[in-house]
């Protein structure tokens, strides 16, 4: 067993375990912390796939940004009602069946196909290649993305503005 296989299995256990905790724990705040662990584990998977830049973006934007926003939302909403928000689940059996059927369908489809077993060698820096492509071939979607984020943030501020 070489290092990569070991790292993959450790990350897989962390990722699946923390994802299960996100959907099963009853404390909403704990669920967010488990989500942070799951997102960090995903950054580790990206590192295994030689995508250092994506891993950094994942840590900064996701694990940093989203977790902060969610914690803020919980704190603000709990202060508004002045009581703890319960985090319960319903229709566990139905949800379990739906998720299991979907997982079975995807896994059987994946197992049927002949897929690459080994990573092809990359020549040069992947981060540099990503940067080149973003500013040449994908420059229009990139600019549209900036517009989308501006619109989303402005509307978020508009929605959450104080009452006047």
């Amino acid at each position, binding site marked *: 067993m070489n290092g990569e296989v070991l790292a993959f299995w450790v990350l897989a256990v962390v990722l699946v375990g923390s994802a299960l905790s996100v*959907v099963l724990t009853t404390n909403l705040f704990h669920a967010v912390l488990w989500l942070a662990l799951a997102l960090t584990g995903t950054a580790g998977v990206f590192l295994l796939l030689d995508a250092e830049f994506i891993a950094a973006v994942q840590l900064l934007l996701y694990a940093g940004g989203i977790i902060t926003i969610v914690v803020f939302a919980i704190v603000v909403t709990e202060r508004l009602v002045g009581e703890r928000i319960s985090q319960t689940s319903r229709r566990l059996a139905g949800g379990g069946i739906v998720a299991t059927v979907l997982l079975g369908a995807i896994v059987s489809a994946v197992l049927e196909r002949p897929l690459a077993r080994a990573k092809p060698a990359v020549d040069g820096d992947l981060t540099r290649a990503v940067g080149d492509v973003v500013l040449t071939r994908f420059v229009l979607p990139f600019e549209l993305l900036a517009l989308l984020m501006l619109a989303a943030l402005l509307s978020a501020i508009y929605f959450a503005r104080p009452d006047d």
Partner: protein
Amino acid sequence: MGLQAYLILAATVFAIGLFGVVTRRNTIGILLGIELMLNAVNINLVAFARFSADVTGMVFTIFTICITVSEAALGLAIVILLFRTRRTVMADHLDLLKG
């Protein structure tokens, strides 16, 4: 590890996220499930990009991460707004559009 292992890992995380979206009663909990599902999609994109030696998938991952952040900010703003007006975050109680 082959591409298969990464795809199955992503499918597992996606199914767990779907389970959360279906079963959670709290809207913030549903949003957390959606984050998990989008995260699984990102693993798929990066894995395919790496195994086909084509960076397009990684560019798409950057796009999806940015869109997810917008979605989270907007979704939580809506949750706060709902909380102000309806005093609840339980999805079952939000039946204003029910015919």
